[in-house]
């Protein structure tokens, strides 16, 4: 295997283009540091800067416009090897497109070097200005004068890059590059480059148009990917043995309707667990608006002697309503075939079949749903109440759940 960083492929750039000088500087800096080609993965963007893959004898990954820094993050995290060097190459256009990827890589201090070839414009598509085109350059072309460029060096620095620099003069390329390539963590180097087709043809002009050279550092340790050993999710689950009997024949559907934060979902989960403890097949699902902390909260539980395939519950057998939110979304389910228990503060006068009980008053807002469940169990005898006590078991809020469970006992 060759030890040369560069292949003998001819530079694919326009005559006079500055990118060739940068490519040679990268190669020299890598060799000076002592890298072998297979120690290096070069990840490239779209655009003229992204044409460099064939020039390098290293590993190469050629991606999409603006996305190479994020792709490089993945490569670096995947390699997770300090002896390997990930270099991302993109132009000023790509850096504009994927600015957030750069900030994210800097914030995480991922071990890679991002080299931005800044030729002041999008060269491949005809010389359009980019977010890194300098104000002076744009003013001379009367394109967006007065709108400053992103200072990518300072942005990366503020986001946490260990090394962040801008270099304009080719005389300084090697020095700046070696510092960037040697930095442990995320480093960015913006390198000025000539685009003879659309921008400038003389180095002096480029120096005039470019922002000042700059070098900033942060003291931070690089973030390494930690591949953990973990145990099976199933091993963390306690089996739910059959401990109780039930009077449920075939299939029974229970709907709990209340408000977000009212313990509806956890009460339903306890019921499903109690059903399982009673040797039944159980399903439980929740329905709530996207804003989980406000609005209605509905939970559906099916308990069945047979395995449950279809888990929909359009015609529940039991409906427990504990808040106005719950009533408004579940009232269409009320009919003479459903046993409906509702909090006594709710106006259900138009539904004579509804049984009203002081769930909220006796068990509090968070305990009302569970209190409703225990009331249904006491009235129907479908499950043993002890199965719910067992389901609560060592729950972290066990004490208050048990209190809610028995809050209405004296009144039934």
């Amino acid at each position, binding site marked *: 295997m060759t030890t040369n960083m560069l292949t003998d492929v001819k530079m694919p750039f326009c005559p006079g283009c500055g990118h060739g000088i940068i490519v040679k500087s990268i190669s020299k800096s890598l060799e000076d540091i002592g890298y072998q080609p297979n120690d290096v993965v070069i990840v490239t963007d779209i655009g003229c800067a992204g044409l460099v893959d064939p020039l390098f004898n290293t590993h190469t*990954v050629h991606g999409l416009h603006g996305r190479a820094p994020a792709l490089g993050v*993945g490569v670096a995290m995947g390699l997770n090897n300090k002896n390997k060097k990930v270099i991302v190459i993109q132009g000023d256009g790509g850096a504009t497109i994927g600015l957030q990827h750069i900030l994210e890589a800097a914030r995480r201090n991922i071990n890679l070097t991002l080299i931005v070839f800044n030729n002041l414009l999008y060269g491949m598509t005809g010389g359009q200005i980019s977010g890194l085109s300098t104000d002076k350059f744009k003013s001379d072309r009367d394109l967006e004068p007065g709108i400053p460029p992103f200072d990518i060096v300072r942005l990366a620095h503020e986001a946490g890059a260990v090394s962040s620099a801008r270099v304009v003069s080719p005389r300084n390329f090697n020095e700046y590059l070696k510092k960037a390539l040697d930095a442990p963590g995320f480093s960015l180097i913006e390198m000025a480059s000539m685009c003879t087709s659309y921008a400038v043809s003389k180095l002096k002009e480029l120096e005039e148009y470019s922002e000042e050279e700059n070098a900033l550092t942060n003291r931070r340790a690089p973030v390494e990917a930690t591949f953990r050993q973990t145990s099976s999710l199933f091993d963390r689950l306690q089996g739910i*043995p059959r401990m109780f009997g039930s009077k449920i024949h075939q299939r029974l559907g229970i709907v709990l309707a209340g408000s977000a934060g009212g313990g509806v979902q956890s009460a339903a989960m306890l019921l499903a667990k109690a059903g399982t403890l009673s040797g039944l097949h159980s399903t439980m699902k929740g329905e709530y608006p996207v804003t989980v902390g406000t609005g209605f909260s509905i939970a559906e539980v099916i308990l069945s002697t047979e395995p449950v*395939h279809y888990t929909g519950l359009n015609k529940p057998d039991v409906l427990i309503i504990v808040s106005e939110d719950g009533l408004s979304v579940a009232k269409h389910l009320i009919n003479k075939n459903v046993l409906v228990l509702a909090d006594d503060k709710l106006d259900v006068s138009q539904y004579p079949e509804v049984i009203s009980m002081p769930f909220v008053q006796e068990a509090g807002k968070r305990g009302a749903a569970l209190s409703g469940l225990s009331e249904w169990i006491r009235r129907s005898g479908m499950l043993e109440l002890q199965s719910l006590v067992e389901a609560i078991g060592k729950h972290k809020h066990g004490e208050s759940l048990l209190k809610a469970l028995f809050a209405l006992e004296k009144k039934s």
Partner: protein
Amino acid sequence: MKTEEQKKIVLTDASMIITEACVQSGADVFIGYPITPSNRFYQYGGNRFPLFLAGPDEITVMQWMAGLSTAGRFPVTATAFPGLALMMEGLNMSYMMELPMLLIITQRLGPSTGSATTGAQGDLGVLHGAISGGYPLPVFCPSDFEDSWYLTHEAIKTSIALRTPVVLLTSKEMVMTSKSFDISDLKPLERLSMNFDSDPIELPYQTYRSGQKMVPPFVPAGNDEYQVRFNSSTHDNEGMIRKNNPESLNNTRRLKEKIEKRLNEYTFFEYDQQDDSKDLIVSYGISAEASRDACAEWRKSGHKASLLIVKTLLPVAPDILGIIRQFERVHFVEENITGLYREIIFGKMHADSVFSVEKIGSMITPEEIIKSLQS
């Protein structure tokens, strides 16, 4: 028959089963943005995967996934349509680079952000046309908890064997509904390694040179032995950009051929045939259970019907078409109002023999399926 002691009945959901199946199968990285209803994957993934990364957005997620895959890791993400829309660019890139990875799509009601907490089956059409040029993207679709276990393994196996991203298509109702389930029924899964099924490496190694299987052997970027060149643009065997030369165009054609060539190895379906039945119920995913119930009910009432639950939705296998062709009346059951799978099978030609049980906003009920059988 198991004794009570041999069973381990728990309350679980498909998110947990799929997550565990991923890790047991050898997936080592979960990268996600917790869009509803994929949030539980994010939660379980954070606890279970050897490496967990919280992506800031889905574009980034796909790029990180691709980078990790080039380095030889097997990445998994989970999202819903709004995230999938952002992932399209990176998905095409990874498809072109031939990078193994798994995308779990948890369908919810669209269009656009639609209703985040309402289930749906609306993304099959998007996946059918996801890759520019119409190149096939393998899409697996579990219909229950057992499928969630075994099909996840098969999806990862296919992804590695074919060096391609694959999709596991689920729905809110599947991944967020808890059910009592005997997890001792799930057999431990084989841990898969990259290249378990590849052609041998020929020297000099070229990233995209394939042999008999049409799948180039995978060598990770950064290895000490062989130079690798991954490329998202049209490329030759070495991985260099080449515009319209025969080698690079063959490489592009191979993307289709490698996936279709071994379709029979990863085509999964459940076919419950009833002799002399003229009606076939075709369903998948979250509508499959209602279809099972409807079919059983229909038969109980003295009628005849067969049932086909499709688990490898894309590419469409000849076996699936062969079964559908045998019936006088075919009833497609899917939770959308445009008949996405029906249209993939029959196109715009709506024959009198093809029926659709379609719906949005809630799951299709067994009664609605029976109504179609009665028509």
